[in-house]
C-alpha cells in the first residue's frame, strides 16, 4: 500500500475554516448520541404499547398493531427514511408541505430521522416485548384474573415485570442497533458521526485515520451501552427466578 499515515490530522484546522477536525468528529458524535438516545426512549414506549397490543384479546387492536409491526419491521430503514423525507411532504396539503420544507434544514433533518428511526426501532422492540409476554405461562394470567385483577392490572403487576426481565438481552441488541442505524441520517444530509467521518476523509485526504477513529468511537459507545444494560440486568434480577 502506498499511503501516508498522519494520525495528527485530528488536531489540524479544517480546510473549511470551521475549527479543527476533532471538532467535526465531536459534533458528529453529538448528533449520533442525541438521535439514538431520544429514538430509543420513544421506541421503548411505543414498542411496549404495540407489543402489549399484539397480545390483547381485542381482534381490531391486535390487527392494527400487527400491521404496524409488519410494515415497519419488514422494509429497509433507508427506504422508510427516504419516504419520510422526500415523499411525505409532497403528500401533505401544499401549505403544510411547504412549511416543513422551509423549516431550519438541520432541525428538519433531525426530526425526520428521529421519526423514522423511532418507528423502525419500536416495531422491532414490539416483537421482543410480545415474545416476552408470550413466554409468561398463560396459567399465571388466568390465576391473576381469578384473583380479581383487571386486564391492566394483570399486565402491570404480573406479566410485564417478568416479560421485561426476560427480554433484556435481546433489547440490548436493539439498543446497540439504534446507534449503528442512526448512520442512515447522513443520506439525507444530517452529519452524524459517520457523515462527519466521510467529510473529514474527503477534506483531509486521510480516509483511513478518519474511519479507524470512527470505528473506535462506535465501539466505545456500544460498550458503554452493553455495560449499562448488564447493570440493569443484574440490578433487576430476582433471586431464584429467570437465569439467576
Amino acid at each position, binding site marked *: *500500500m502506498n*499511503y501516508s499515515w498522519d494520525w495528527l490530522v485530528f488536531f489540524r484546522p479544517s480546510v473549511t475554516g470551521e475549527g479543527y477536525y476533532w471538532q467535526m468528529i465531536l459534533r458528529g458524535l453529538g448528533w449520533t448520541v442525541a438521535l439514538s438516545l431520544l429514538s430509543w426512549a420513544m421506541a421503548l414506549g411505543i414498542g411496549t404499547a404495540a407489543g402489549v397490543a399484539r397480545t390483547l384479546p381485542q381482534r381490531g387492536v391486535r390487527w392494527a398493531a400487527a400491521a404496524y409491526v409488519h410494515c415497519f419491521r419488514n422494509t429497509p430503514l433507508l427506504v422508510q427514511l427516504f419516504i419520510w423525507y*422526500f415523499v411525505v411532504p409532497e403528500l401533505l396539503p401544499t401549505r403544510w408541505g411547504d412549511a416543513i*420544507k422551509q423549516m431550519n434544514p438541520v432541525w428538519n433533518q433531525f426530526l425526520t430521522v428521529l421519526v423514522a428511526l423511532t418507528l423502525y426501532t419500536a416495531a422491532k422492540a414490539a416483537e421482543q416485548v410480545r415474545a416476552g409476554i408470550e413466554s409468561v405461562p398463560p396459567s399465571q394470567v388466568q390465576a391473576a384474573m381469578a384473583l380479581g385483577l383487571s386486564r391492566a392490572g394483570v399486565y402491570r403487576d404480573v406479566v410485564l415485570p417478568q416479560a421485561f426481565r426476560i427480554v433484556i438481552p435481546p433489547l440490548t441488541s436493539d439498543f446497540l442497533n439504534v446507534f449503528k442505524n442512526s448512520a442512515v441520517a447522513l*443520506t439525507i444530509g444530517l452529519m452524524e458521526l459517520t457523515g462527519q467521518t466521510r*467529510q473529514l476523509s*474527503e477534506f483531509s485526504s486521510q*480516509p483511513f485515520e478518519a474511519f479507524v477513529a470512527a470505528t473506535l468511537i462506535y465501539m466505545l459507545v456500544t460498550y458503554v451501552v452493553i455495560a449499562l444494560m448488564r447493570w440493569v440486568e443484574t440490578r433487576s434480577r430476582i433471586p431464584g427466578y429467570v437465569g439467576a
Partner: protein
Amino acid sequence: MTSRIHRRALTAALLACLVPGAWSQAAKPAAKPAQPAAAQPLTGTLAKIRETGTITLGTRSASVPFNYLDDNNKQAGYAWEIAQHVVDRVKKDLNLPNLQVKTMEVTPQTRIPLVANQTLDLECSSTTHNTERERQVSFSNTFFVVGARLLVRKNSGIRYWADLVGKNIVVSGGTTAERLIREANAKNGWGINILLAKDINENFLMVETGRAQAAMQDDVILYGNIARANKPYDWQVVGVPMAQEAYACMLRKDDAQFKALVDDVIARMMKSGEMEKIYTKYFLSKINVKGGVVVGMPVPEPMWELFRNPNDKAFQ
C-alpha cells in the same frame, strides 16, 4: 536468496521481451519521441500490469458526461474515452495485445482509498485534482476545467451569490463546492443554510422538491442535471464561477513511469485535436442517456488555454 535470484532472472527475461518491441516502435517514422515506459525497467503500475496482464479502471455510473452507464448499460463518457486511450497505449508500449481490462464501480468516497491501496490502477471521471489529495494519490495532466456555480429555477430571482443570503443551498457532501461555500459563508456572514446531498442525483432532488433554493456544484454537472431534468426549460445556471478546479485522472502516488505515460496520452490527445472531438461528442451532441439528451455546454475559456498548453497544475 533463491527467490531473489529467480525474480532477477524473471525481470531480465521480461526486459528481453520488451526491448525489441520498444526498438521496433522507436524505429517507426518520426512524431514518436520518448517511449517513457519502455526506456527503463518497468516499475510500479506498469510492472504490475505487465505481471498480471490486467489493468483495473475505476468507473462511475452517473457522472454525466464524464463517465456513466448509457441507456444500453455500457460505460461511456469523455473521461472514459481518455481511459481507453491510456489502455490502448499500455497495450502498445508493453506489447500486450491481450491486456485484460477490469472495471470497478467507485463513489466519491471510495475512489481515493481504492487508488491508494492499489486496487485501482487508473480512475478517470470527475475527480478534482487538489493539493490535499496529492498526499495519497497522484494526478495526470488536467483534462477538464470547471468552476462551481449555481443551479436555480428561472423564476427564483437568484442571479448572483449575494442573492443567496438567508436561503437554503444544497451541495454534495465532501466536495470542493462545500468547502468553498462554507468559507464564503463564514467570511461574508451571508447566513446561508447549507444542506448536504449524498450524490449528484440527490443534489438535484433537493432543489426540485423546493428544500433548497439553489444547488451549488461544478458547472458542468449542473448542465448535466438540467439536461436530464423533466422540464429542462425551468432551470438555469447562474453566478460567476467560484474558483476553478482541475479534473484529472487519478493514479498511484510516486509512480513517475505510469504518470508520464498517462500525461503523454492526454497531451497528445489535446495537441492532435482528438480531445476537442470527444468534447464535441459528449458536451455538444446528443448522448445516449435518458433516451438522448444534450449537455449543451460550450468549451469553457480556460480549456482552450489547456489544449494549447497541457499541464498537471492543481488550482487549490
